[in-house]
């Protein structure tokens, strides 16, 4: 480390920035267009610019982003096969470069891409499977919080119970689909996904549920649609009473069981019984 005295921060002059901006754009534009020629300033071998050398960079960009997509969407990859997935991911990558170097946040729009991607048009469930995998990815990296048990709720007096709001776990992601996508996702967490997939085959059935990560492991739970409707209300800051209004009386009759399921899944991180904003 050198021992120069402290100095002022340097700023590059605008001519220097402009000089490099123009050339960097030529380079990166050629990089993203496989049919384009190698940028003119690249050194030559035997008077020829080496396409193969430049292609190392093209390959690095494409293959690293394809790998990132495969890492985030392993179930989609398993459903279509790795050989089909690679060019499909490449088509996505070509039109969607990451907006930041943090690749764990890359690929959110894959489900929308799949909805428009003609070769998988007949796999109607695929976009929603991708949505579950994105929910898993978000849940996996979400902020930590300690789940609370249902005892906290039963400790409240009846009046407080009426106005209580729930702090849902930061890793909770709700899902609704007209396909059995949570069952598909769960099947692919098993050693033999094909055997588990056979059990799902049959008349198409929609599913509602959630993924949550109480500690380190993300779990997917299938629940009645009413429970997801109810959780949606709670996540919007509604009180327990207000949230219960969105579900039918018959469903409300099972409220105790439903709450027990939700608490057991670890998706409640706190209660806010003394909120004055009601």
């Amino acid at each position: 480390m050198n021992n120069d005295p402290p100095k002022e921060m340097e700023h590059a002059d605008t001519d220097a920035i402009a000089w490099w901006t123009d050339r960097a754009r030529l380079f990166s534009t050629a990089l993203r267009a496989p049919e384009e020629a190698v940028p003119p300033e690249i050194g030559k071998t035997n008077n020829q610019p080496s396409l193969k050398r430049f292609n190392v960079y093209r390959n690095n960009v494409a293959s690293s982003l394809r790998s990132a997509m495969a890492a985030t969407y392993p179930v989609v990859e398993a459903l279509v096969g790795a050989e089909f997935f690679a060019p499909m991911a490449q088509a996505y990558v070509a039109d969607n470069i990451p907006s930041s170097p943090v690749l764990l946040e890359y690929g959110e729009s894959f489900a929308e891409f799949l909805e428009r991607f003609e070769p998988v048009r007949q796999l109607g469930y695929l976009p929603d499977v991708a949505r579950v995998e994105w929910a898993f990815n978000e849940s996996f990296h979400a902020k930590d919080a300690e789940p609370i048990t249902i005892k906290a709720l039963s400790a409240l007096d009846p009046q407080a119970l009426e106005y209580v709001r729930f702090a849902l776990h930061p890793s909770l992601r709700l899902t609704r689909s007209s396909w059995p996508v949570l069952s598909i996702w769960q099947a692919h967490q098993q050693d033999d996904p094909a055997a588990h997939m056979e059990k799902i085959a049959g008349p198409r059935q929609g599913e509602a549920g959630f993924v949550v990560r109480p500690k380190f492991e993300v779990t997917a739970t299938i629940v009645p649609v009413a429970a997801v409707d109810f959780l949606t209300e709670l996540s919007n800051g509604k009180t327990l009473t207000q949230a219960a209004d969105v579900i039918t009386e018959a469903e409300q009759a099972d409220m105790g069981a439903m709450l027990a399921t939700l608490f057991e899944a670890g998706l409640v991180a706190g209660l806010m019984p003394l909120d004055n904003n009601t």
Partner: protein
Amino acid sequence: MPHSRNKSPIENAGKTTPLPARAGVGFKPEHFDIIVSDQPDLGWFEVHPENYMGAGGLPHHQLNRIRERYPLSLHGVGLSIGGPRDLDTHHLNRFKKLIDRYSPASISEHLAWSTHDDGHLNDLLPLPYTRETLDVVVAHIDHAQAIFNRPILLENPATYVVFETSTYSEIDFLSEIVARTGCGLLLDVNNVYVSCTNHKRDAAAYIEAFPLQHVGEIHLAGHAEDHDDAGERLLIDSHDRRVIEEVWALYAKTISLTGPKPTLIEWDEDIPEFPVLLNEARRAGSILFDHQDGDDSRQNLAMSEQLS
């Protein structure tokens, strides 16, 4: 430990315990269980901070456990220090949060760039070495060091092309950067071998000409071999296999000139079982031991004796 912003990074440099002059490896989540159970005798671990910029969960749990037992190096791949655009302040701040959270012994980045318009190309792209790019790189390193309030180490790149517009050699360019920013250097010996082979230069001469007094860390890795359109050797910095003998020889030569330096085995693709990685680190440790007489000698001896 809060630092005042108006001090130079150099003044604060001594306040962070540096990496030990021993061998370390890149931490991979696949190896977490065996590391925790075996507590291997390694000098330190390195990670890419971009992989730990999520809010919580398993990655941070694992990194905390590693950090409890070992010194840590944060080796960034996403700052785009060589790019034409201003550094991404949001990304810099996320990086700084990790520095505050894990108190790394070392922070490093690459002499490379990755930005395209509003996007990120996720590779370490090469730049021409000119007065203009030098100004840009210096301003970016100043910016990063001001946010981090510490000096960083800058790594020499593995390159596959050269620019006809370059007016500096890579070594002169790096030396100018060091003189103007006060940063240190991360000497990647495999990158030296890869670049020098690709551009028909003498790797040993590169090492001899390198400003070795500023080297704070050394990297070693495996590379793939191909040929370019003209049939010339084209080596690719793939980090997917063992270090080759020629690179070990170049490393031993480097250490004979610098004395022991913290040395990392990088292995990022086709990740092997942990003992394979550990064995590579032990080999580096034995070379470090051959060239030292300081405090770390006993530990490096212990490592080299376990070399199988």
